[in-house]
């Protein structure tokens, strides 16, 4: 049973455009929702994370939107750049000894 569903699987965006990746979760006990960015040949690295007490978190060009009632959260990349081309993973976990559950990933390509 997949606890975090991520879409789309791949995404091509023009330079300067907005990239949007969506995730949906099932476990209402989740209280931590990070996004990880992975470049080829590297391990994933934390990009931005949100907890359910806020509906939005912004860090530079990256924004997480969180909808608790719909059990959905999304990553928006504004003014997308070729350097943003990477694989993005959403994840979720909760306090206690339950590890992060990852979505299947989105391969983003930003073309000039």
């Amino acid at each position, binding site marked *: 049973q997949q606890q975090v569903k991520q879409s789309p*699987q791949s995404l091509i965006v023009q330079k300067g455009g907005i990239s949007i990746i969506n995730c949906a979760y099932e476990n209402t006990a989740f209280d931590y929702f990070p996004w990880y960015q992975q470049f080829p*040949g590297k*391990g*994933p690295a934390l990009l931005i994370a949100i907890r359910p007490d806020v509906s939005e978190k912004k860090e530079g060009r990256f924004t997480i939107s969180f909808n608790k009632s719909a059990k959905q959260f999304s990553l928006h990349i504004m003014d997308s750049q070729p350097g943003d081309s990477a694989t993005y*993973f959403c994840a979720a976990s909760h306090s206690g000894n339950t*590890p*992060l559950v*990852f979505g299947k990933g989105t391969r983003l390509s930003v073309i000039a």
Partner: protein
Amino acid sequence: DVKVTQSSRYLVKRTGEKVFLECVQDMDHENMFWYRQDPGLGLRLIYFSYDVKMKEKGDIPEGYSVSREKKERFSLILESASTNQTSMYLCASNQGPGMNTEAFFGQGTRLTVV
């Protein structure tokens, strides 16, 4: 600079061999994890540990075992390697108690079983 170090970037092993993947973290983290990454399947949890000598099965533990004798080191063992264990293996750690803090990943070990 925080670090999770995996002992090998690339490994080629023969079917039936016993394979050891080593991971060391320098952040004094309680929690350590082993994931495998396959195209289209994302990151799948094999085993995790929230304390020395403690281990818990993840989603796909079959064919694997782990060892955590010291806080900073978490080893993944393939008891008898098979071709379907060809994959990218990622080690990670995070600060406890609990699991809802930033996880730091190693660079991965790409294992090929022939």
